[in-house]
């Protein structure tokens, strides 16, 4: 017999939670125990009094699974609100990557030129290396990294996706 697979969708969820010990384990654990995917997860406190955090999760799965993920998240006692930004419509998604590139000569020049095209900033430099800081959507970063591989990519640190709805109102 074979395991069946269904078509998957990528969704970005914004989850407002109590900033409490264990909340991240609770959310990450929910995904692992129920077999949901996490493509990216970011978390940081977002209120002045540091009591509330926003978690941005990029997940993928069949439509029914996405609905189930939202319902399961919403059910957690520490979760105040879950917003499906993908479903909601216009929103901004950004990610930051720090990219270390090593090389000399043409490779070094090419790396700088590409960095300029991608509006990446040099945040560290030696005679034989750069560290670039690049921000943008995940696809842009993927593309930038693909190019950097050609010119001496050493290592990458990515933040994962932060996202917010467009317009004046909170989502």
């Amino acid at each position: 017999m074979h395991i069946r697979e269904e078509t998957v969708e990528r969704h970005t969820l914004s989850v407002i939670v109590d900033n409490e010990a264990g909340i991240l384990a609770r959310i990450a654990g929910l995904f692992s125990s129920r077999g949901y995917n996490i493509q990216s997860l970011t978390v940081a406190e977002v209120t002045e009094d540091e009591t509330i955090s926003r978690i941005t999760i990029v997940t993928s799965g069949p439509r029914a699974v996405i609905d189930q993920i939202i319902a399961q998240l919403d059910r957690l006692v520490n979760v105040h609100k879950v917003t499906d930004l993908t479903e909601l419509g216009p929103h901004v998604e950004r990610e930051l990557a720090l990219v270390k590139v090593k090389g000399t000569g043409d490779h070094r020049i090419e790396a700088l030129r590409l960095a300029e095209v991608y509006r990446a900033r040099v945040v560290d430099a030696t005679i034989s290396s750069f560290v670039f800081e690049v921000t943008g959507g995940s696809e842009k970063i993927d593309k930038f990294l693909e190019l950097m591989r050609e010119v001496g990519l050493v290592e990458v640190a990515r933040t994962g996706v932060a996202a917010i709805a467009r317009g004046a109102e909170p989502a």
Partner: protein
Amino acid sequence: MTAERSGADILIEALTDLGVEIVFGYPGGAVLPIYDALFKQKKIRHILVRQEGGAAHAAEGYARSTGKPGVVLVTSGPGATNAVTGIADALLDSIPMVVITGQVGTPLIGTDAFQECDTVGITRHCTKHNYLVKDPAKLGDIVHEAFHIATSGRPGPVVIDLPKDVQVATAPYRKPAPGAVLHKGYRPQVKADPVAIEAAVEMLAAAERPVLYTGGGIINSGPAAAQVLRELARITGAPVTSTLMGLGAFPASSPQWLGMLGMHGTYEANLAMNEADLIVALGARFDDRVTGRLDAFAPHSRKIHVDIDRSSINKIVRVDLGIVGDVGRAMEDMVKLWKVRQHQPQDLKPWFARIDQWRAKQCLAYPESIKEIMPQHAIRRLWEATRDRNPIITTEVGQHQMWAAQHFHFEGPNKWLTSGGLGTMGYGLPAAIGAQVGNPNALVIDIAGEASILMNIQEMSTAAQYRLPVKVFILNNEYMGMVRQWQDLTYGGRYSESYSAALPDFVKLAEAYGWTGLRIEGTQELDAGIEQMLSTPGPVMVDCRVAKLANCFPMIPSGAAHTDMLLQADEVSGEMDDEAKALV
């Protein structure tokens, strides 16, 4: 300024303020301060179990039979891990329960200290919520919040992990004002959307072949919900079926009653689900034991699902109308609106005529025997002998559980306590103890199997200590019968490890624990044996020897549709394909 008191005293005072009368527990190093605080007071009664797993199941039995939350107190490390099965059981069956676990002192947490385990980590996914309390000043509010979370919305277990130094440290405690909002992020939706209620009523009024598919949510909603279900059934005329967990919410003596549905449900219930044009799921969650093969489940019907847990809706079966809210209140709203609109049900006579044809199959019939006691017959006789006394029945897990669900009939809620979701062998005896503690004058019977009963046999000692007159009625066929039945059906009768070898002499075992032990060996002894069990004061264990190879029918084999029910053993094939084997 309130006087400061120790964390242990705060805990006891908060429990007292919450009206807790009974705590099931077992002492140990990390809860000694709490046990000392218990010693100094008289309002809370502690029931000492023999293993922490027994405490958790006893609390479940107490909760399910009284409607009040069950409370458990255990020590750190093994005390907590032993309770985990009962906690997981309570989560799957939505039983309100608060478990207080001791923990090593906060400076020792994370150091692999003696009897340390990561209780909040271990229980995170088998509780509705859990806490590690590090500050005694927050303890009082957390205890109140824990009870609120355990008992509201979809009920479930909540763990409070309490380090030993927090039990000793002092802080002020003040009872929260009544109605104070206890948690900002937790607001279960109790009242259903009136627009959805209206749509549901219109769909019900238009249905020609409706079925009310009820579940444990109605029991959880409280006895009033069972009453309003009767009214909803009366005005709509719809037939009613129930999951294992919902038995008793609707009286089995009603002509509208179809019996239980699902894997070991009745032919008429499953065929009615299959042929219905409208299914109204009321506090039930389309468990795989109920639906059978999903793509063949109720293909002709529109579906309404009322559930307090939003995540239950569309989880397994897509429905046409999802209603989030308390099922009792939602049914009440439906009944009111139906009456205001002066609806009349469609002519359901043709529908009941078809149901009667299915009923005529007599799917619960079993081969009679005079030589051996048929287990189904034993349960029928037990039911007939006790029905006037409105007993509370608990079960273990396996064939005996399904036979009890099929052949013991209930007229009211809170009388049927069984491990449905998790399917925990060893549930029945401690649950019976908990039920007896909560209902001292009730007749409480654990219908057991000889394999299951051994899983928590130590709790006989608890019943003896508190002189709890529970009756344990063992259907002894010397097999883990349900395992053996699946091996018959799926694995060509290769009985791998399913024989209960080296069984104890249950009569002598009973006597050793200070119980009365009885043995029933032939059909002619059955009624007298049951009578003797009932008339003997104190706890009684009955070893009822039944036919060894009887199997539980009807049955929907794994991977099959409702229409593919097996009614009798001769329809059984010896091997199944891999697709079926992969299903549990």
